[in-house]
C-alpha cells in the first residue's frame, strides 16, 4: 500500500466507526424507559439506602441541603430570623415563643435538626411536634395511636433518626405515593374524601398537603387536627375556629391587648388548592418536582424548591412566554403581596398598642373593649394566614390580597372600637 491508500483506508475506518457509534447511541441502545422496582424493607427510613436503588431521585433530593435565597428574594431556604425583615412580628407574637425564634424554614433534610435547635420548644415539649418531621411517625402512630402526641418530644426524637425523607411520601414495597400523617387522613375523611382511593394526580398534591397545612393541637390530648371542616379559605377556617373545636380557643393570649390569638402555620395546601393552578388540576409536584432528564432518562426532581429555579421544566410545558416574563409576573405578585402584608402586620401591631392603652383607662367600657379584641383577633389571623405561608402570595394572589385588605380594615375597626370603649379619640 502506498501512502495515499493508507490515508484512504484510515479515513474509511474512522468514518465507519463514527457512524457505527452514532447508530448504536441513537438507535440501537436507547436510554432506559423502564425503571426497575427495588422494594425497600418496611420501616427502613434511611434515604441513602433508598438512594442506592434510585440514584437520580436521591441525587436531586440531596440538593435540598442547599441553603439559598429564593430567586425573588422572598422566603428561600436560609434559616434567618423572619423578624429581621418584619419587626412587627415581635409585637404581634409578644408572649408567644414565635417572638423569640421564628426562622425561615430550610429544606426537608433539615427538618429534624431544625426542630431540635428551635428555641420555641425543648425536649419536654409535646410529641405532637414530631408529626411532620420524620417518616418514623408511621411507627409511632401504629404503636400507640395519637398517644404519642402526649409523650415528651425528647424520647421520640431519639427514636426518629431521619428527617422528612422518601418514606414520608412513598410506600417502600411498591414506591407508590402514600400519605402517613394521620391528621391529614382524618381531616380529608371528615370532608368525605377517602385518601386511599385518590388517583395519582391527587396524590401528587396530597403528599405535600399532609404537612404543608394549617393545624392546631387539641387541648389535653395534643392530637394534631387540620381545621378544614368548613373549607380551606382563611375566612372559612376562622369560622371553624369560632366554634371552639375540641375545646380549642386560642394559641396564646396577647399580654398587651389581652386578645386571644390564633397562630397560623404554613397553609400552603389550602392556598394552592383554592388558587388558579390548584383549581385547574395542577398538582404541587407538577411545579415543585418537575420532570427532568439525565442522560436521556426521565425522572422526577426531588429538589423541592421554588419553581423559578426550574422555569423551563416547571412552567414552560404550559407557559411559553420565556423565563424573564414569567419571573417578572411572579415577582410582581410577590412584591404586591409583601407590601400589603407589611401594612397589615404593622396595623395589627399598632392595634395591640391602642388596645393596651384603652385597658389602662379608668371606667373603660368592657363590652366595647371585648368587641375590639374580637376584631383584632380576626385581623391578626387574616394577616398571619398570608404571612405564615411560603408562596408570598403566589399560590392564590387574589384571595391573599383580599385577605390582607380585610385584615387592615379589621385592625382599624378594632382601634376605633378601643377608642370608643375608652371614650377617647386619640389613643
Amino acid at each position, binding site marked *: 500500500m502506498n501512502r495515499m491508500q493508507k490515508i484512504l483506508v484510515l479515513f474509511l475506518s474512522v468514518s465507519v466507526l463514527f457512524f457505527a*457509534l*452514532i447508530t448504536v*447511541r*441513537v*438507535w440501537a441502545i*436507547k*436510554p*432506559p*424507559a*423502564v*425503571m*426497575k*422496582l427495588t422494594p425497600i424493607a418496611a420501616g427502613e427510613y434511611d434515604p441513602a439506602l433508598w438512594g442506592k436503588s434510585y440514584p437520580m431521585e436521591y441525587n436531586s433530593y440531596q440538593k435540598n441541603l442547599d441553603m439559598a435565597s429564593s430567586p425573588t428574594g422572598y422566603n428561600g431556604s436560609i434559616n434567618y430570623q423572619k423578624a429581621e425583615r418584619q419587626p412587627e412580628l415581635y409585637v404581634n407574637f409578644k408572649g408567644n415563643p414565635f417572638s423569640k425564634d421564628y426562622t425561615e424554614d430550610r429544606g426537608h433534610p433539615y427538618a429534624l435538626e431544625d426542630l431540635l435547635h428551635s428555641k420555641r420548644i425543648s425536649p419536654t415539649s409535646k410529641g405532637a411536634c414530631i408529626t411532620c418531621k420524620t417518616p418514623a411517625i408511621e411507627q409511632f402512630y401504629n404503636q400507640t395511636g395519637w398517644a404519642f402526641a402526649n409523650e415528651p418530644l425528647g424520647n421520640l426524637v431519639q427514636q426518629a433518626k431521619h428527617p422528612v425523607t422518601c418514606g414520608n411520601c412513598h410506600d417502600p414495597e411498591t*414506591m407508590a405515593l402514600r400519605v402517613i400523617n394521620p391528621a391529614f387522613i382524618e381531616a380529608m375523611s371528615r370532608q368525605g374524601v377517602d385518601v386511599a382511593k385518590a388517583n395519582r394526580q391527587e396524590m401528587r398534591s396530597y403528599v405535600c398537603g399532609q404537612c404543608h397545612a394549617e393545624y392546631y393541637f387539641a387541648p389535653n390530648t395534643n392530637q394534631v387536627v387540620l381545621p378544614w371542616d368548613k373549607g380551606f379559605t382563611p375566612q372559612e377556617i376562622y369560622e371553624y375556629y369560632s366554634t371552639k373545636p375540641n375545646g380549642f380557643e386560642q394559641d396564646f393570649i396577647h399580654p398587651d391587648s389581652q386578645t386571644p390569638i390564633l397562630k397560623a402555620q404554613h397553609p400552603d395546601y389550602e392556598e394552592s388548592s383554592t388558587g388558579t393552578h390548584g383549581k385547574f388540576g395542577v398538582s404541587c409536584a407538577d411545579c415543585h418536582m*418537575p*420532570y*427532568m*432528564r439525565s*442522560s*436521556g*432518562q*426521565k*425522572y422526577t426532581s426531588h429538589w423541592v424548591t421554588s419553581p423559578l429555579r426550574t422555569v*423551563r*421544566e416547571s412552567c*414552560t*410545558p*404550559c407557559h*411559553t412566554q420565556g423565563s424573564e416574563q414569567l419571573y417578572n409576573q411572579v415577582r410582581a405578585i410577590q412584591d404586591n403581596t409583601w407590601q400589603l402584608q407589611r401594612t397589615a402586620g404593622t396595623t395589627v401591631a399598632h392595634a395591640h398598642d391602642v388596645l393596651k392603652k384603652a385597658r389602662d383607662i379608668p371606667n373603660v367600657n368592657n363590652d366595647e373593649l371585648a368587641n375590639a379584641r374580637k376584631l383584632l383577633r380576626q385581623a391578626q389571623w387574616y394577616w398571619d394566614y398570608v404571612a405564615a405561608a411560603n408562596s408570598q402570595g403566589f399560590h392564590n394572589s387574589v384571595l391573599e390580597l383580599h385577605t390582607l385588605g380585610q385584615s387592615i380594615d379589621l385592625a382599624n375597626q378594632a382601634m376605633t372600637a378601643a377608642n370608643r370603649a375608652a371614650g377617647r379619640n386619640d389613643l
Partner: protein
Amino acid sequence: MTENRNLKINPIFLIFMGFVAAIIGMLFFATGLSYADKPTFCGSCHSMQHVYTSWQNSNHQHFTCGDCHLPQENILAKLYVKGENGLRHTYHEVLRDYPDTISFTTTANSIANNNCLRCHAYVVAPTPLAAGEKNCIHCHRNLIHGRGQVEGGVTVE
C-alpha cells in the same frame, strides 16, 4: 507513473463511468432524503417519542414532520435547515443532554408559523391578525402536539 496510466483510459469510458457514478450518487441521496423525510425516522429518536405520539393522534397526522418544521419556499433553504437541524439533533441525541421540555427556537417558530399560513392564510386574511405578527402558534400551540397524550415516560416494573 500514475499520470501515464490515466492517459491510457478511453475518455468515452471515463465520461460513461462519470454518468453511472452520478446516477448512483443521486439515487443514494434521494433514497436517503426520502427515508429521512418520513415521520417514522424522526420518531425513532428517543427525545422525539412524545411529540411523535401526539402527532399520530392529531388532526394533522397525514402531514410529515418536515411539512411543518422545514421551510418550503425553495429546495435549498429546506435542505440547509434539514441538514443543520439533523447534525445538531444527532449531536445532542448522542450526548443525551436534551432537556425534558423541548421548545422552539425563534427560527423554528417562524418556520412552523409560515407553514401554518401556507394552508390557512385565508383564515386570517380578512381579520386584523393579517396586519399584525400573525403568529398562529402563540395561541394554537397545543393543536398538534397537545398535552394529555404524553408518551415516553418511565414505566416502573
